[in-house]
């Protein structure tokens, strides 16, 4: 408390802002508290306007421009453009201004349109009517006029206009149901509770008469956390203080359900609502391709600068003789002559920069963006990834990472809901060592419900009959399941007999499975009414238990409890939780029998829970109650205090039994994992589940095989030996085999011979991760651990807290090789690792949509990961790799002749090509074919990629953007440029190429080079295209045709708006000359020859797996029997 106050003081002192305090005080209904109360600092709150738009009408242009030019590439082009404007440069500013203008405008229009949509949505939000209570009357106002402290009425199916403290509802028990579908995607109904003292206020007048203040924390984005308290002032006595928690808070964006109306008081409005605070943009992830693209850019920037430097220096060397600098026929102006030498040299340098600046093209960024944006549609369109059951298809939340899907080396997957269906089924329960199986299939026939209890071990004795019923009651009571009221006609007054058709809703599917399972065993949970839980027992009698307290579940404690009071007045505490968290707190019961059963079930892959109880005498209950109350009212460290209170209450339990719930594997999960492993991807399972269950799942989904040797790094083992010893021992085992492995892998055999699987649990992990005191060898364990992991084919991490999942991902992400990681999960507990990994994938599952919302891509089922990575990822990667390389290549081809020409024009920055060609080369002559290639290319067909996962290894480690490949493309570009330039040079040198003896000038020379170039780079792409649809034909031949038509037109007219007519008839005259045709054909052939040769030779001598597959598919029809035999051999050897 002191600390907090100090902080407040410091903050106030430093910031000088009065309203920056840790908590805020709200006068409900704007009524001042009675004079005796503590005085508060009045604070100012924003109104209830939601502003999601970035721009206003006035600041759009400057702000948007500023945003856009913050991108380094745009800024570079702006500088080039400005240089062109300021100094006398060889190319007109139009050549770089036009593309830049185009890019900027398109982006601005896109962003402007998006912002306009946001404005529209905002104003729709801000103007929708809200019911206020003012002076005891209901008033309608626009939502944006809402102020903190206003009392609001919300009707059924309306969304809450701001964050409200729930005062009362029309229900007598002061509850309401809410869905938060638009907040976190969970469509299940959640119950919220009104403040105890105000839940009786049912009319406007009542509510208006309320005199209270609310103290609560300043707004913070966590949707599930809220701490506050309410002081209700009565005339006669001291104010009543009540704690407020997130169960009293109704969030903006949530919708009221199954409740006629509620009253609430606004506490956070407008941009301070929790929903608005959650609108921060996610941190930007960048793909490996983008990173290497940036590296290449830097290389090209260096090339550009060095070219300009070389030319500038040579220019001044060459000019040192005055007759060259200023021959009689080519005099300078007086102003030029008088310019300072240094300034002149600098201007020359800039002019060369401008001349060569096209080597880094604006259009590359546009094309890459378009490719990613448009390409991502293929993912969402994919029919194979559409799930019929849920009606969901894949979602693309960011298209920036498409190609990263083809680069994944590590997959971290959640177990529940991701590998498994999260479709829980109650399998059995074990009470005092007796096993009960509901609804068992016995000898092929389903036993009827009533007699569905099958005693496997032995029939229970009379005394245990009581225990058994207690157990079922415990399961019926100890949960947070809600009963969905099927109809609105008689929700509360429903007859108990119809209870059988109850639909249970819970955030945890386990609970639903348990309650449903118990229903089959004869005990039906009916509903929670007036704080009384009603259950229907085997004799069809309704038993009522007053619900005194719920000690809710959390992932640290891994258990939950309820305190109930039976009709006879006995107070019970029922506790249910993971075995590890229950057993230590048990003092009585058949622990050993139950433990062995639990362990057996866990090995079979079932999820087990233990149930325990304790009877509380009223004094004990009073004590517990006080503990809880004290913790709940606390404004600071409430979580911690609550945890402590729970700890104290949940002890000395009597063990009743255990339950087992089956979570079936997702369809084709094993197949998917197998394929991914064949693709060279290491799959790690990270789960909160216990080791045995998780390991069983791993076996089931073939992550571990029968031959896999399991290495355990668990708490149990560390207890026996020191961590140090265990780690060294494991690494010795692993390294010994990897030593022999290298010999094996040399002979080309697969690595299945020594298959290691590692199992590690959360506690052991945190020991490894913990930095040790003696700084010298810290991090040593990590290295060792990583070394072990690297040599294991599969790793299972169990008992992981959400943050530990992220920690593991981070550990691998920043290990030596910097592998590309992918995290996939479906629940809120996976969000941290989804955000941490290079690629985060959410499974649109049962545990809400939080994972899907925070992910980069979301898929309906785990099995879709296979196609997503092996097919889409592969395609995206090869497409964008070619796109990047090709762009640099074609611009080397474009600019290098320009550079060479400087040696023949006295380094005067004379351009080789006409301005129109300079401008349009990247924009229109060569832009569409590569864009289309990067959208459509399929070097092998979809089916082949899916059938043969090993092809994925061909592109691993950014294979197509390695330095070797980059250098090859660059040299190819240089070679082609040399061919274009010197080919044209030797043709033009000192002779005529027309049949009428007339001569061609420099523009014809440039046009010839340009024509050869446009054809060469387009045909080069055509040679690289392996998938010729009619669209490819259309675009490739179409863009060549466009070039010819454009050139004919451009040179065919005296353009009145141009100050020069240098291209007049140049192209047509060129085409009228025979040698020009011959030259064009020759030069194109020469330029393409080496690339074709390289391709053919590489394919013939060192074929990659992909190329082999391609060839195999080609001759499939011819050599079908052979291929069939081959594939059989292959599959035979891989096992």
């Amino acid at each position, binding site marked *: 408390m002191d600390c907090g106050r100090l902080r407040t003081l410091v903050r106030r002192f430093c910031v000088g802002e009065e309203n920056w305090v840790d908590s805020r005080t709200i006068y409900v209904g704007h009524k001042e508290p009675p004079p005796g109360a503590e005085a508060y600092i009045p604070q100012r709150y924003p109104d209830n306007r939601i502003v999601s738009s970035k721009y206003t009408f006035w600041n759009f242009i400057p702000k948007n421009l500023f945003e856009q030019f913050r991108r380094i590439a745009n800024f570079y082009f702006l500088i080039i453009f400005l240089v062109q404007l300021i100094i006398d440069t060889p190319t007109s500013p139009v050549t770089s201004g036009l593309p830049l203008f185009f890019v900027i405008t398109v982006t601005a229009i896109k962003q402007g349109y998006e912002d306009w949509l*946001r404005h529209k949505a905002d104003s729709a939000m801000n103007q929708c009517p809200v019911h206020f209570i003012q002076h005891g009357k209901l008033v309608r106002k626009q939502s944006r006029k809402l102020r903190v402290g206003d009392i609001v009425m919300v009707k059924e199916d309306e969304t809450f206009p701001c964050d409200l403290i729930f005062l009362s509802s029309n229900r007598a028990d002061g509850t309401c149901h809410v869905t938060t579908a638009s907040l976190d995607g969970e469509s299940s109904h959640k119950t919220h509770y009104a403040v105890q003292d105000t839940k009786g206020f049912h009319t406007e007048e009542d509510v208006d008469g309320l005199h209270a203040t609310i103290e609560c924390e300043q707004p913070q984005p966590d949707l599930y956390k809220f701490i506050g308290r309410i002081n209700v002032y009565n005339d006669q006595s001291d104010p009543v203080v009540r704690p407020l928690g997130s169960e009293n808070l109704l969030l903006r964006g949530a919708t009221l359900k199954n409740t006629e109306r509620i009253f609430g008081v606004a506490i956070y409005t407008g941009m301070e609502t929790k929903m608005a605070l959650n609108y921060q943009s996610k941190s930007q992830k960048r793909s490996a391709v983008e990173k290497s693209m940036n590296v290449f850019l830097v290389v090209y920037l260096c090339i550009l600068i060095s070219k300009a430097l070389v030319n500038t220096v040579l220019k001044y060397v060459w000019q040192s003789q005055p007759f060259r600098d200023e021959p009689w026929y080519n005099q300078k102006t007086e102003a030029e002559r008088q310019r300072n030498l240094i300034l002149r040299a600098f201007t020359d340098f800039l002019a060369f920069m401008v001349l060569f600046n096209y080597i880094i093209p604006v259009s590359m960024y546009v094309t890459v963006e378009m490719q990613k944006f448009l390409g991502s549609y293929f993912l969402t369109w994919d029919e194979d990834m559409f799930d019929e059951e849920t009606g969901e298809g894949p979602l693309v939340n960011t298209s920036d990472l498409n190609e990263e899907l083809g680069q994944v080396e590590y997959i971290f997957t959640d177990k529940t809901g991701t590998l498994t269906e999260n479709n829980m089924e109650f399998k059995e329960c074990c009470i005092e060592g007796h096993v009960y199986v509901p609804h068992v299939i016995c000898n092929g026939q389903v036993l009827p419900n009533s007699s569905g209890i099958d005693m496997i071990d032995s029939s229970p004795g009379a005394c245990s009959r009581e225990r058994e019923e207690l157990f079922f009651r415990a399961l019926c009571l100890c949960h947070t399941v809600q009963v969905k009221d099927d109809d609105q006609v008689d929700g509360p007054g429903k007859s108990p007999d119809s209870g059988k058709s109850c639909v249970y809703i819970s955030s945890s599917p386990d609970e639903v499975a348990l309650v449903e399972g118990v229903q089959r065993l004869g005990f039906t949970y009916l509903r929670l009414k007036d704080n009384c839980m009603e259950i229907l027992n085997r004799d069809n009698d309704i038993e009522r238990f007053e619900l005194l307290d719920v000690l809710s579940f959390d992932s640290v404690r891994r258990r939950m409890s309820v305190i109930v009071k039976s009709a006879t007045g006995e107070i019970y505490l029922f506790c249910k939780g993971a075995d590890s968290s229950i057993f230590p707190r048990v003092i009585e019961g058949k622990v050993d029998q139950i433990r062995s059963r639990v362990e057996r079930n866990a090995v079979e892959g079932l999820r087990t829970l233990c149930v325990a109880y304790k009877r509380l005498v009223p004094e004990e209950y009073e004590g517990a109650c006080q503990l809880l109350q004290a913790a709940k009212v606390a404004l600071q460290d409430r979580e911690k205090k609550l945890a402590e209170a729970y700890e104290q209450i949940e002890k000395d339990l009597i063990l009743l039994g255990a339950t087992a719930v089956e979570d079936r594997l997702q369809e084709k999960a094993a197949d998917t994992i197998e394929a991914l492993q064949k693709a060279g991807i290491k799959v790690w399972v990270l789960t909160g589940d216990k080791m045995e269950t998780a390991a069983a799942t791993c076996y089931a989904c073939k992550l571990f095989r029968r031959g896999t040797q399991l290495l355990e790094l668990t708490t149990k083992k560390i207890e026996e030996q020191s961590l140090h010893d265990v780690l060294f021992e494991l690494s010795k085992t692993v390294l010994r085999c990897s030593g022999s492995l290298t010999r094996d892998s040399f002979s080309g055999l697969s690595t299945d011979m020594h298959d290691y699987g590692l199992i590690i649990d959360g506690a052991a992990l945190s020991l490894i991760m913990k930095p040790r005191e003696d700084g010298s060898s810290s991090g040593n364990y990590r290295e060792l651990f990583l070394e072990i992991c690297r040599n294991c084919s599969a790793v299972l991490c169990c008992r992981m807290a959400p943050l530990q999942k992220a920690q593991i991902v981070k550990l691998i992400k920043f290990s030596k090789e910097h592998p590309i990681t992918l995290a996939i999960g479906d629940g809120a507990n996976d969000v941290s690792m989804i955000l941490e990994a290079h690629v985060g994938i959410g499974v649109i599952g049962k545990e809400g949509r939080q994972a899907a919302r925070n992910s980069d891509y979301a898929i309906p089922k785990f099995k879709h990961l296979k196609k997503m990575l092996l097919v889409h990822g592969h395609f995206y990667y090869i497409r964008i790799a070619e796109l990047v390389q090709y762009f640099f290549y074609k611009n080397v081809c474009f600019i290098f002749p320009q550079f060479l020409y400087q040696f023949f*024009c006295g380094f005067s920055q004379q351009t080789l090509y006409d301005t129109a060609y300079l401008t349009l080369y990247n924009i229109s002559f060569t832009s569409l074919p590569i864009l289309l290639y990067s959208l459509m290319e399929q070097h092998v067909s979809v089916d082949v990629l899916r059938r043969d996962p090993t092809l994925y290894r061909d592109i691993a480690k950014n294979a197509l953007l390695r330095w070797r490949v980059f250098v090859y493309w660059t040299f190819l570009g240089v070679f082609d440029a040399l061919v274009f330039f010197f080919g044209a040079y030797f043709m033009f040198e000192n002779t005529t190429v027309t049949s009428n003896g*007339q*001569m061609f*000038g420099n523009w014809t020379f440039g046009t010839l080079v340009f024509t050869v170039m446009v054809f060469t780079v387009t045909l080069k792409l055509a040679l690289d295209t392996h998938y*010729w649809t009619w669209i490819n034909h259309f675009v490739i031949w179409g863009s060549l045709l466009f070039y010819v038509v454009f050139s004919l037109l451009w040179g065919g007219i005296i353009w009145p708006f141009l100050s020069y007519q240098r291209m007049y*008839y140049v192209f047509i005259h060129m085409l009228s000359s025979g040698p020009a045709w011959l030259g064009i054909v020759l030069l194109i052939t020469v330029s393409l020859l080496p690339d074709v040769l390289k391709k053919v030779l590489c394919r*013939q001598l060192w074929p990659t797996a992909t190329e082999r597959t391609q060839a195999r598919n080609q001759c499939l029809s011819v050599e079908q029997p*052979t291929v069939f035999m081959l594939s059989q051999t292959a599959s035979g050897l891989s096992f």
Partner: protein
Amino acid sequence: MAMNYNAKDEVDGGPPCAPGGAAKSRRPDNTAFKQQRLPAWQPILTAGTVLPTFFIIGLIFIPIGIGIFVTSNNIREIEGNVFMYYGLSNFYQNHRRYVKSRDDSQLNGDSSALLNPSKECEPYRRNEDKPIAPCGAIANSMFNDTLELYLIANGSDPTPTPINLKKKGIAWWTDKNVKFRNPPGSGSLEERFKGTTKPVNWVKPVYSLDADDDNNGFINEDFIVWMRTAALPTFRKLYRLIERTDDLHPTLPAGQYILNITYNYPVHSFDGRKRMILSTISWMGGKNPFLGIAYITIGSISFLLGVVLLVINHKYRNSSNTADITI
């Protein structure tokens, strides 16, 4: 795209939509394009497919090359029309300052540009407060040597007979008739150029370049030829045509000739050289062995590569198959 929030979602997402209706519309269309299953031709560059191409290239290129080479080498003989060129070396007509130093509007007969030439023409834009026509460095440095060719008849008659050198037809037709135009007006050429002055280095003004009105002023062909800037510092330009008079005699019969050069044009100052070239022209222009040799070379290389590939293909076919098996 990275923005997490879209107010639209909230408005739409308010009431939970019925899953049944939404599911149908969400289902992607089963079109070949969207499923990336458009029918396509899937060629692969393998030795097998490329081999014939190499041979075909070889088979086509070598004959073409030989044809070109022979044509090019035959050009020496002085038959048919003979073309007379002058050549300059070390003359940077392609210098940027030089290339842009012209005003195409002025040359196209635009009256306003005639009297107010473009700034690009500096420092050859105005002289003594009068606009220069034609302005700019290119025009100013026009080649002004005169070349005359005489034939000394065999022994008996020592008086040289002048060869008829045709001045017209040396410039592009489009340049002469469209791109270059004299300023409009009805009077004499001199009147039409009134108010302008001649380029500094010129002896005569532009309107007295030639007696023939059809070859005078901006449409003088020598001028037009000069104005088409050469691509390289060593260049030649067409000077005159020597037309064949009749089929029986060669255009330039064997004998002694006199070349009379009126030397006006200084080239020493920039280390330049002048040349005069007489040449006939084939369908593929003047003599240039490059194209022929290149075709022959590329054809042979391609043929050779074809053979090499054939060998490789034959040798590695089996081993590549065995490699498959060891996977």
